[in-house]
Each structure stands twice: as C-alpha cells, then as structure tokens.
C-alpha cells in the first residue's frame, strides 16, 4: 500500500474514533492522539523520502501509486509527493497538531468541532498528495466546506455573515478553477489520444498556447482567491475575525496555502507559456496585495483584522514570488508559505488565547499584558518578530529568498514591483511594533487583568510547537530550502524554456 494513504487514513480513523466515543472528555484526547500520530508519521515520511532519494530514486514524484477510478474520464487516484508537497505536509501536520491543543477547551459541540477540524485537515492532506487534477479539486473543496460550519457554529461576532462570505467567495474561486480545470482537461491531448487529469502526463504532452492563454487566468485567479489575491481577498479579514481560534490557525496557516500551492502546481506548472505572457498582470496585482495588505493592517484596531491584512500582504508575497518564475523566487514562495503558515497560526493561536482572557480583541482596550501574561506575550513578540522578518526566525529566510529571486529580473518593471514588495518589510515593522507596543508593553490598562492566568499546559504545547518550528526553520533553513528546491529545477527548466 502506498504510505501516503496513511496521511488520509489516520485522520479518517481519528474521526471515526471521535464518532464512536461516548464520553465527551475523550474527544479531544483522541484528536490529540490522532494528530500526534499524524505529525510523527509526517516526519517518518520525511525520513523515508530522504531514504528514497538517497537510494538514487530521481523520479519527479516519489511514492507514486495510481489506481484507475473513472475509466472513461481517465480519472485516477494518483498520489505522490515531491519535496514541495513534503514540506507542505509537514506544515499541515505541525499546524493541525498545534490547532488541536489550542482548541482544548472548546465546550460547545466538541465532537462536531473536532470532526470538522480534522475533516478540513484531511482535505488539505489529500490536496497536497494528489497528482490527479480531479482528486486535487475534490480535496480542495473538502477542505474548504467545513469552514462554513466551523465559523458559523463556533465563531464569534458577525459569524454568519463572515462564514457565508468566506464560503461563497472561496467557492466562487473554485468555480473559476473548475472552468480552468476542464479547459486543461480537454486540452490535455492536443495531438489526439486519451484526455487526462494526470498532472505529470499533461505536463509531458503540453497544452497548446491558445488554450493556455484562455485558461491560465481562470486557474490562477481561482487559486488566487484562496491565496488572498487582491482584489479577491476580502473574505479573509471578516472570515478570520469571526473564526474560532483553531480554525483561523488552520485556515490562514494551511488552507490559504492551498491557493499558492495550487497556483504553482496547476496554473503555472501546466501553463508556463501563458504564465509568462500574463505574469505582468498578476505581478501588478500581487505587488498591490503586498503593500496594500500591509497598509491596511496599520489602520486596523482589531487584532484579528490586523493579522488578516498582514496575511493578505504575506500571501501576496507568495504569489508574487511564484510569478517571478525562477528557482530562487519560487523556493522563496514555498518557504514563505510554510513560514507564514506557522507564524500566522501562532498569531491566531495567541490572539485566541488573549481574547479568551480579556474578552476583547481591540488593541486599544488592552495594554501592558506583558506584565500579567508574560509567556503568551513573549510568544506574541516572537511571532511578531518572525512576521517582520527577523533573522533566526522563518520569515527572514523566506522573504530574503524571495527578494533575491525577484531581483534576478533586471528590467524596470520587475525591479519596481520588487522594490515595492521589499518596501513592505518596513510597513510590516510598523504595524507589528504598533501592536506589540500597544498591546503588550506600556502600563497595564485594566486592573482586572491582574487576575489573568498565564498559559495553561495545552496552550503551551500548541504555542511552543509552532515557535519551535519557526525557529528551526529560521536557524537552519538549508535542509528545507534544498528539499523544496530539488524538484524545482526540473519544473522550472520547463517554465523558463
């Protein structure tokens, strides 16, 4: 059996376990066990991956297995991973693991909550291991739809509006995506022969340019919506603001990465010529995203909004880097996905914990929290520093790789866009420090806060896991960078030709 299938079976088994259990106290324990197993398995998979590569296997994808599903459409259950998917799987495992612990105290409809959460994660895993476009799309939607319930039921504030908006916009994106996918499918065998959804096969044959030009925008925007591409990002602030903690974490940390990953794996990988032709439009949009998100964040007063806009900025950087279409920038894009995934998850986790204590997310209503909840505050500062690109934490590695990569284009257009994108690091510093300064430092605003408890053990587990991951990538980025870079060489050769 393909070991990758375990990535799907472990969460499914966990869900079954949750359904079976009668005592609600055990629900979270089972979830935690399941997701810990998943985390361990991800690392085991990484080990196997290296072992396989070490043994001289140079296939573009490892652990490939395929089972025919719909013969007449040539739809297969085809799974396989390369370094990029491996990295994304690790990210998902870490964030999900942390997410479970952060939601330790969910008391309303526990079973349903954890099942939805794990279902979401299952979709994400499936998406990352799919080679077949159809299953990829299937898992994509599986991952998106639990969001509605998760936000709608366990959210706060205008949760129904936000949940609806988020779901509809993402589904609207996937509508475009579907058109693009069908276009790819029907152009997958221009010289006759069997149509296919198999990414590798489509790539081998190549799509005619005219079709590429028509379908690239659909596919790219389709994924771009999930990747918070300007101007399709407005689901993100509202959605994040209303979502419960773990959902924000998973959504910003993992789900939004589906957008970037898909834009790369599907849109750009399969339609490189069109990507070249049309990149300029999207470079403009993404550069706007980067700066615009950062400026947007400065003005916000709600912690989650700040972080949501910051996500717009950071995810914009991912797409921006992808569009630069060279090895370095693309490596940076994937690194940025992982880095942003981790740190934004950490952010949302901390915001959730702070909100759970102070019952407000308005930064002006709080102040001086460092004094009363130092543990959480320090984690928040670390997350902030990672976000503004401090060396030694993951954000720096990703951003620098992107910038160096983007700088390889020496024409004026790319230069201006790049400089614009780079300038976001200053703006990021402004809003991060503003939050840190207002929220954590300074005199204690509210005497009631003196009674606040610092992090509990499960919060510590969740937070520290993420910090460790952020720091590990930040301190020793080479292995991850190489892991990502290795498949890129082959992919980008075709992109640049």
């Amino acid at each position: 059996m393909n070991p990758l299938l375990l990535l799907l079976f472990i969460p499914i088994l966990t869900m079954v376990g949750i359904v079976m259990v009668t005592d609600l106290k055990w629900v979270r324990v089972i979830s935690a066990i399941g997701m810990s197993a998943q985390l361990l398995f991800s690392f085991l998979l990484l080990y196997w991956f290296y072992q396989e590569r070490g043994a001289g296997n140079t296939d573009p994808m490892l652990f490939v297995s395929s089972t025919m599903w719909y013969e007449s459409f040539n739809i297969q259950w085809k799974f396989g991973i390369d370094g990029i998917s491996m990295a994304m799987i690790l990210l998902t495992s870490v964030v999900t693991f942390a997410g479970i612990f952060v939601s330790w105290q969910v008391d309303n409809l526990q079973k349903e909550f954890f099942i939805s959460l794990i279902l979401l994660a299952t979709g994400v895993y499936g998406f990352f291991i799919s080679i077949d476009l159809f299953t990829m799309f299937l898992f994509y939607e599986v991952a998106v739809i639990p969001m509605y319930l998760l936000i709608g039921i366990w959210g706060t504030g205008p949760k129904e509006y936000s949940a609806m908006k988020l779901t509809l916009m993402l589904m609207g994106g996937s509508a475009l995506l579907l058109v693009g996918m069908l276009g790819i499918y029907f152009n997958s065998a221009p010289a006759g022969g069997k149509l296919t959804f198999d990414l590798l096969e489509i790539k081998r044959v190549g799509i005619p340019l005219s079709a590429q030009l028509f379908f690239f925008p659909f596919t790219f925007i389709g994924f771009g919506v999930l990747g918070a591409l300007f101007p399709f990002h407005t689901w993100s602030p509202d959605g994040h603001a209303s979502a419960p903690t773990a959902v924000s974490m998973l959504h910003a940390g993992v789900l939004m990465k589906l957008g970037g990953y898909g834009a790369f794996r599907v849109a750009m990988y399969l339609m490189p010529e069109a990507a070249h032709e049309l990149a300029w439009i999207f470079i403009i949009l993404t550069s706007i995203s980067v700066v615009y998100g950062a400026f947007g964040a400065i003005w916000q007063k709600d912690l989650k909004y700040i972080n949501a806009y910051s996500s717009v900025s950071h995810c914009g950087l991912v797409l921006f880097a992808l569009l630069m279409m060279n090895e370095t920038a693309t490596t940076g894009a994937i690194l940025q996905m992982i880095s942003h995934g981790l740190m934004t998850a950490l952010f949302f986790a901390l915001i959730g914990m702070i909100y759970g204590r102070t019952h407000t997310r308005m930064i002006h209503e709080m102040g001086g929290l460092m004094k009363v909840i130092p543990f959480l505050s320090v984690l928040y500062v670390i997350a902030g520093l990672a976000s503004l690109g401090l060396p030694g934490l993951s954000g720096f590695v990703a951003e620098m790789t992107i910038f160096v990569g983007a700088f390889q284009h020496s024409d004026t257009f790319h230069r201006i866009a790049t400089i614009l994108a780079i300038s976001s690091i200053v703006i990021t510093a402004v809003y991060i420090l503003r939050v840190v300064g207002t929220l954590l430092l300074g005199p204690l605003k509210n005497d009631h806060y003196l009674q606040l408890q610092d992090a509990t053990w499960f919060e510590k587990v969740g937070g520290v896991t993420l910090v460790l991951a952020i720091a590990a990538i930040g301190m020793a980025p080479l292995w991850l960078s190489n892991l990502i870079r290795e498949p890129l060489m082959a992919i980008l050769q075709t992109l640049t030709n």
Partner: protein
Amino acid sequence: MDYSFTLLIVLLPLAGFVLLGLFHDRLKPMVAGTLGTLNLLVITLFSYYTAFHYFTQGNSESGYTAIKAFNLLWLSFTESLQIQLGILLDPLSVMMLVVITTVSLMVHIYSLGYMKGEKGFQRYYAFLSLFTFSMLGLVVATNIFQMYIFWELVGVSSYLLIGFYYERPSAVAASKKAFIVTRFADLGFLLGILLLSFYTNTFDFTTLTSMDGVAISSPPAALFLGMSVTTWAMLLIFMGGAGKSAMFPLHIWLPDAMEGPTPVSALIHAATMVVAGVYLVARLFPVYALSSPDSLEVIAYVGSFTSLFAAIIACTQLDIKRVLAFSTLSQIGYMMVALGVSGYGGEEGLGYMAALFHLFTHAFFKALLFLGAGSVIHAVHSNLMTDMGGLRKFMPITHITFLIACLTIAGIPPLSGFFSKDEILVAAYEHNKIIFVVQWLVAGITAFYMFRLYFNIFWNRTPHFHHTPHESPALMTFPLIFLAIASVLAGFVPFHALVTSDGKAFHTELHWMIAIPSVLIAVVGIGVAAWFYLKQNILPEKVTHGVKGMYTLVYHKFYIDELYLFLTHKVIFNFISRPVAWFDRHIVDGTMNLIGDTTVYGSNLIKKMQSGHMQWYIWFFTSGVLLLAFLLLYLN
C-alpha cells in the same frame, strides 16, 4: 595557527542568551548576572588571545591576510549567491572584537551594580548576551548577507534593550522609533545588497573587495537615473549604515534611545552598535574607494553635516544622556568624514585608518562618559543637569574619570582622542578644505558642550538633593577606572601599522600644523564653557535670550522629529493607511457585497413574475415558446 576556537567567541554569548532567556525566572538575579559576566569574561579573554596572536603572528611583508576561521553554508539562493555563516578574521574585525568584548565586559560588570534590584535583572542580562552575540556575529561576518542578518539581530536587541522598561510608555515609544527608523534604513541596505550582489554575483567580502573581483576590476557601468548602479548600490548600503549610525537625517532615533538603561546606552548607543555603519563602510571600503568615489563624497558630506548639526544641538540639551547622545552623533560624523575623505592604499588610506582609530578610542571614552553619567544618575536619580551640580565632592572617582573622558573627547594631548582626531583632520585637510574647516569648528564646539556638561554636573551651584549623593559601588567604579586608563592609553596604539585600508603598514606622524590649531580651539571651547558654567551665573541665560528664536530651534533639534511625526502619523496614517482601509472596506469589499446585494435585488425585481395568476403563467409560457421559436428561426 588554528583560529577555529573563535567560533566560541560568537557562540558563547548565544548560549548565554538561550540559557538566561529560558531559565530567567528560575535563576536568582545575581546568579544570572554573574553567569553572564563570567561568560563575557571568557569571551573577552578569547578575543584578546585572538587579537594578540593575529597581530603578532599574522604580519608579513604583504600585510595582514584575512583568515576565514570558520564557514558554514546556511542558505543558498543560487549557485553563486549563498549565505555563509562564518568567521572572518582580519585587522578590522579583530580590532572590533577587542573593542566590543572590552566595552561589553565593562558594561556587564557595571550593570551588576547599576541594575541591582531592578525587576527583570535576568532578562536584562539575557538581552545583553543577545546583543553581544549579534554584534560579534556582525563584525566577524564573512559576507554581506551574514552581516545583514546580524545587523537585523543587533537592531532587535537594541529594540529590546531600549524598551527594557516596558511599562514606561516613553521607553516603548523610543524602542519602536529606533526599530522602525533603522528598519527603514535597512530597507536601503537590503536593496543595496541585492543590487550589488546581482551585478557582482557574490555576497562574499573577500571576493567583493579583492582587487580582481568584479566589483572593483569591472564594476557594472549600467546607469540608472544618471548614476551607475554601483554608486546606487553603495549609496543604498550606506543608507543602512547611516541608519544604524544615526547619520542625518536618520538620526532621530538615537536621542530617544536614551530611554534605555544607561549601561545599555554606553554599550549600544555609544561604543558598539552605532559604529556599525562606520564598520560597514570600512568593510566595503575598497569598493567604495575604487568603484564608486562619488558615494564616498556623499558619505563625507553627510558625516560632516551630521557632526556639525549634532554638536550644535548638544550645546542646548539639558538631559545629560541626550547631550552624550548628540555628542555620539557628532563623533560618528567624524568617523564618516574620515572614511569619506580617504583614498585606498598606503598613505592615501590615512582617513580610513583615522576613522577606525577614532572608532577605537571613541568606544572607550564614550563608554566611559556614559557609564560616568550613569553613575551620576544613579546618585541623583535624575537625568537633568539642572538637578545636578557640585558633585565632585561627593563622587571623586566618577569625577576624575569623567574629566579624563571630557578631556579625551575634546582632543587634549596626550589623551587618545587627540591622536585620532588629529589624523582625521589631517585626512580632511588633504582632501577637502571646507570639510576640514567644519570639522575643526566642531572640535571647538565639542570641547564647549562637553565641558558645559562637566561643569554643570561637577561644579556650578549645588542644588538641594533629596539625599546626599555618594560614590557608586566598586562594581561600578572599576569599569570607570578601567575605561579611563584605556582612554588615556588607547592613543598610543600604532594603528597605522595594524588597521589600514590595504592591510599594509604605512608611516605617519603628528602634523603640528593641524594639531596646534585644533588643540587651541578645544582650549577655547573649554574656556568658554568654564566662563559660562564653572560658577553659577546668568551669562548663559543672557546669551540664550539674545538668540531666542535660534535657541528654541536648536533646543527642539530643528524640529526634525516633529517633521517625521507629521510624515508618519499624519501622512502615512491619514493619507495612505486610512484611505487604504476605507477603500478596502467600501470599494473592494463593497463590490463583493454589491454583487450579493444585486443578486438579492434582482431576486426581488423578478418576484412579480410568480404572480400567482394562472393565466399569466400560461401567457408567460406561450410567449416563451414563441420567443424561443423566433429566436431559433432567426438564428438559423
């Protein structure tokens, strides 16, 4: 000789940070402090050992050679653009190692006394270790990207230390300001790095500065807005240096940074971090001098202007730490001037040597000044010189050491400041007369404001103290004495034989033609200060009253802060960020909501279609059929 042990110099402080940071609440304050200090003592000894060996054994006919004691691939961007983390030993970095570890050690010791009983004492030592780690990593960087990494780390440790009293809003604001301003400058630095590395295809200092490297042998001639890209790159890199070194107009953060604990000011904002900009320019000096002389010109003028500008402001400030802060600006201006007027190689490189010489001496006497000021503040619990006076009776050691420092900075022979300043003036004189005149004047102003400070603290009237000031404990006076000795002796270090632009020794001597006027003007400055401030009199007030408008302008630091505040708060917040937020909510999101609303509106619009009347249904049905039929007949 194998220098791989130098890795410990960098790693030990990191270990100290991690240890103290993780266990800060489990360790007793004094245990943490002692651990940190002992750790640094070991590091200092290591770096002395390194310096001793390097300078005694490394010399050869062709000068000192650079040694890469350690190198590790950290991250690779492309085949050639890779970030290595390593240790580069050359005269420049070894000299910096000595300076940093010495000052840092003194500050560690001093803080044991000064910070005693403060809340967060352990955290303080953790941050100090972090800073030391970053700064050491910065100076031993083998490539420009490693430097950038530690550059940023230095920035963040400075942020943490300035904001050490995080419950004090002014400290929080100051730390934020420092970080953002330097961050802005770092943007330039980063762009410069990217630009330079794009054209030279390397980050490595040795490759960049080698005579047959691309950057020097064939600098890219591509033009952008009329300037060569090399000049652009070097100017942008200098922008980073200017930010850290608080050159005009990026100087605004430094005075505010005095919100941090005073030993921190001594360490970071006087002796080490703020000279990083000088170090940066010195590190890339061959590229500046040989490929982009225009940018050196800019550096000289910026330095010169800053030194004058800061010196003038220093004359009006009342907060003693701020006076010292502006004095720091002014002195770093000197160093920049020296670099700016320098050429490359041999005697031509006098300015280069002078800049680093001044950096070396300045580190000691400025640290001494700050620590002395700290000692005073410790005694009177105030920063303002109006609350001080006549302290010489109460604090003899502080007084003497402070006086030595003042004399040193004023350039009175044979103290170290005299020698280094003299070299700078010589270099400036040979290169550019205007700059020379300015720097000469600044020397006088420096003497004036330093002694204004000195007299105001230790002489003048004796105000009413809440409790009688007393001399600081030995933990604090020992560093003062040590640094005072260093300030006196540092001038005799044969810098021209050790740290030169091309690594080769050259001959230099005192230029009396320049030394005498500079000493004279310093004496004049001291004299005027004594006239004004030795005894309590109304002269200063008269003078300030005479030039009231001017005085207010200078006192408010030429309103540059207000200008920035206006730019950031009013323009960026109100004219960019707020409209962006509005646009996002109302236009972008509005459009999305509008799509929804339109759909609902459309739904209501056609509601009447379903009127409930059967005949209308049939009518609709039949007209539909006919319409469809006609449409198809027409289309066929």
